[in-house]
């Protein structure tokens, strides 16, 4: 089984699944089963291929990189980009996550989409998404990465706007695509800058070059800056995160796959992939770190008072991504990557859990109308519990290890700073609070479910992926146990070792004591906030009311997402539309058209004024002749 064939199967099986579902399966047939199975099988095949490739890399004597060159895509002038795919240590992990979680989600969505009219279309889009994501991850040059990048954006547009009959959902889809596109525009400029500087866009060749660290605002800093703008667009960071909460309009498995596990992490992957370049531009790194931290805290604060279960999870994703960028920003690429993996597991778990809750509650998403589901949906409750424990960072769970690693690195790394660490810890606390609020409102406490709805546990096909993911979110963390703990139980930090060849982190210096201390503070803080959230939401529901009317104003601001959407609407969208209306009605019609008519009017005007001269009076004609003669004579004689 040559590498080329393996990569080809991994890549093309989702594409084939897409084609089968898209074209062959009759469009509006109801049998979700047939199209679901086709899609899941395609995903599973690509997972197996990914796994074998990963194993190829594992062995001591294994090649570092598995490469497959298909054809030369664009070769114009100095620019050369060919359709070649590479599996190395970084993309190895990524393909495992994508195909693994992807397959689970495909399995899950068979159940979820059981009573939808067009399951075939849904599954074809899902497969197309997998195909694009794989291209993004496996591309051996920036351009191919960009192709995947936009492809993924397109699929998210299709999937978000899946139920297009409702114009709100369609609008959310468009919003997602446009915001992504803004990010992509930034990305492509970054790409050009890199091409200008290094005359190549291949990762291999870029890696070989040596980069002198550029302290000021040189071209390289701009390049990395633009790339980061692309990343914010794709991974929903501060300026361009608005599309993610609206993206919840799509079906839940989509949110799970795209808006939790894979697509949003593309930005982090890109930065990790070009870590050598980002290291050379401290300014950009500092920018990334601050934005990461700010997003974490900001999103978390919004999450506090959201009532829609999926919105809460969406904001938690944004904040967790903030953490990843924080990690990457301070030079802890490996930690960022680690958090990315763990987050994929438990966030996907929670989304699917939420999905099964919604499925059970028959499309009810408002948390205030739930409660006490722990008894009615035991498996979902248990798996969700695992996710909850992982995300708030309880020790032993994956969340703890990855988040702590990032916090420690922000604290210790030269690029990090104490303030950023504090923000991180604050974010962690907030996360713990709103996640426990979520758990309390949905599973614990009195059941506020109204009579008509009779809650039922989701079928096995949905609960199985939940269980697997719960297990993964538990053991996921053990892969990269930080050295400070590991050396006690003599467990090597596999993650560090695995990535060390391709990713060079900033050297963090700090004693073991400090590490323990930071770890302790974050855990304790998270624990307290979790407890008080539990206390408020299960025992003192009424106390909440009192709190609300006391700080009414602040509550309103936060619950309305700081009116960011309205702000964007006012400052960018409306003026743009006005400008174009002005352009069209005024500039186009008035100025440009009028000038052309001006020409015609001049001619007509001249014509009519001359017409008056000819009024039949013969003597006037004679006078004109004589006057003409006089003029000529005068001209000649006075010349």
């Amino acid at each position, binding site marked *: 089984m040559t590498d080329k064939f393996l990569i080809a199967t991994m890549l093309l099986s989702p594409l084939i699944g897409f084609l089968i579902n898209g074209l062959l399966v009759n469009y509006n047939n109801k049998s979700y089963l047939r199209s679901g199975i086709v899609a899941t099988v395609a995903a599973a095949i690509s997972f197996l291929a990914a796994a074998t490739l990963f194993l190829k890399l594992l062995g001591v004597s294994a090649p570092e990189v598995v490469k497959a060159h298909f054809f030369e895509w664009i070769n114009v002038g100095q620019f050369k980009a060919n359709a070649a795919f590479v599996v190395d240590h970084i993309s190895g992990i990524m393909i495992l996550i994508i195909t693994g979680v992807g397959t689970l989600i495909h399995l899950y969505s068979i159940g979820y989409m059981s009573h939808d009219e067009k399951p075939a279309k849904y599954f074809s889009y899902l497969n197309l998404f997998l195909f694009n994501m794989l291209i993004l991850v496996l591309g051996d040059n920036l351009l191919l990465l960009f192709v995947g990048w936009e492809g993924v954006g397109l699929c998210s547009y299709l999937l978000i706007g899946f139920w297009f009959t409702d114009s709100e959902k369609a609008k959310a889809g468009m919003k997602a695509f446009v915001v992504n596109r803004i990010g992509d525009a930034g990305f492509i400029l970054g790409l050009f800058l890199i091409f200008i500087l290094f005359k190549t866009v291949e990762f291999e060749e870029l890696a070989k070059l040596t980069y002198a660290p550029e302290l000021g605002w040189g071209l390289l800093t701009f390049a990395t800056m633009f790339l980061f703008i692309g990343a914010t667009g794709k991974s929903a960071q501060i300026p361009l995160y608005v599309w993610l909460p609206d993206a919840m309009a799509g079906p839940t498995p989509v949110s799970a796959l795209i808006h939790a596990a894979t697509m949003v992490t593309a930005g982090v992957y890109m930065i990790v992939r070009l870590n050598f370049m980002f290291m050379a531009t401290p300014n950009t790194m500092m920018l990334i770190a601050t934005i990461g931290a700010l997003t974490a805290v900001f999103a978390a604060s919004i999450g506090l008072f959201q009532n829609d279960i999926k919105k809460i999870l969406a904001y938690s994703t944004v904040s967790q991504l903030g953490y990843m960028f924080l990690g990457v920003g301070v030079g802890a690429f490996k930690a960022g990557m680690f958090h990315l993996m763990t987050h994929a597991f438990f966030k996907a778990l929670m989304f699917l859990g939420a999905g099964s809750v919604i499925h059970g509650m028959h499309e009810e998403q408002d948390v205030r109308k739930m409660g006490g589901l722990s008894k009615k949906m035991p498996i979902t409750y248990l798996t969700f519990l695992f996710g909850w424990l992982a995300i708030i960072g309880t020790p032993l769970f994956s969340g703890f290890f990855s988040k702590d690693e990032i916090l420690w690195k922000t604290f210790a790394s030269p690029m990090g700073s104490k303030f950023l660490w504090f923000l991180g810890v604050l974010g962690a606390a907030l996360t713990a609070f709103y996640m426990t609020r979520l758990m309390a409102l949905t599973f614990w406490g009195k059941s506020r479910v109204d009579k008509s709805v009779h809650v039922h546990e989701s079928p096995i096909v949905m609960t199985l992926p939940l269980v697997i993911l719960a297990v993964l979110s538990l053991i996921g963390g053990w892969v990269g146990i930080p050295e400070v703990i590991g050396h006690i139980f003599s467990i090597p930090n596999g993650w560090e070792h695995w990535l060390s060849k391709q990713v060079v982190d900033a050297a963090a210096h700090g004693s073991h004591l400090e590490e323990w201390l930071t770890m302790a503070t974050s855990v304790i803080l998270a624990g307290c906030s979790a407890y008080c959230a539990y206390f408020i939401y299960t025992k003192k529901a009424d106390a909440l009311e009192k709190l609300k009317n006391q700080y009414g104003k602040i509550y309103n601001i936060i619950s309305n997402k700081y009116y960011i959407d309205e702000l964007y609407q006012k400052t960018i969208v409306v003026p743009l539309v006005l400008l174009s209306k002005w352009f069209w009605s005024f500039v186009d019609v008035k100025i440009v058209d009028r000038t052309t008519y001006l020409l015609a009017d001049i001619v007509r005007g001249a014509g009519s004024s001359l017409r008056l001269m*000819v*009024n*039949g*009076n*013969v*003597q006037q004609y*004679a*006078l004109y002749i*004589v006057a003409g003669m006089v003029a000529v004579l005068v001209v000649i004689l006075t010349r």
Partner: protein
Amino acid sequence: MQDQKGAHTMLHVGLNHYLVLSGVLFSIGVLGVLLRKNALIILMSIELMLNAVNLSFVAFSKYAQNMDGQIMVFFVMTIAAAEAAVGLAIAVAVFKRFKEVNIAHFENLKG
């Protein structure tokens, strides 16, 4: 032709005198055309202008010793005659219609 004689040169009739005379007659003709209201008078003024031109032609023909001048006069005459005939015919037609030959009536030809 240039007389090298004394003061009398001005008086001895040369090409200049004839040209001056023709110029004067021509201007009178133009004046007639412009000022008079009667169509016939205008036609006559035109004839006068043509004659003034003939005079200058002949004067040049003599002083330049070249017969072309006279030939031109010959042609101008025939054309003048034709023109007069047609002009008068029009005047007659206008007179029949308007009972007077004022130039104003020619405006109806404006069309």
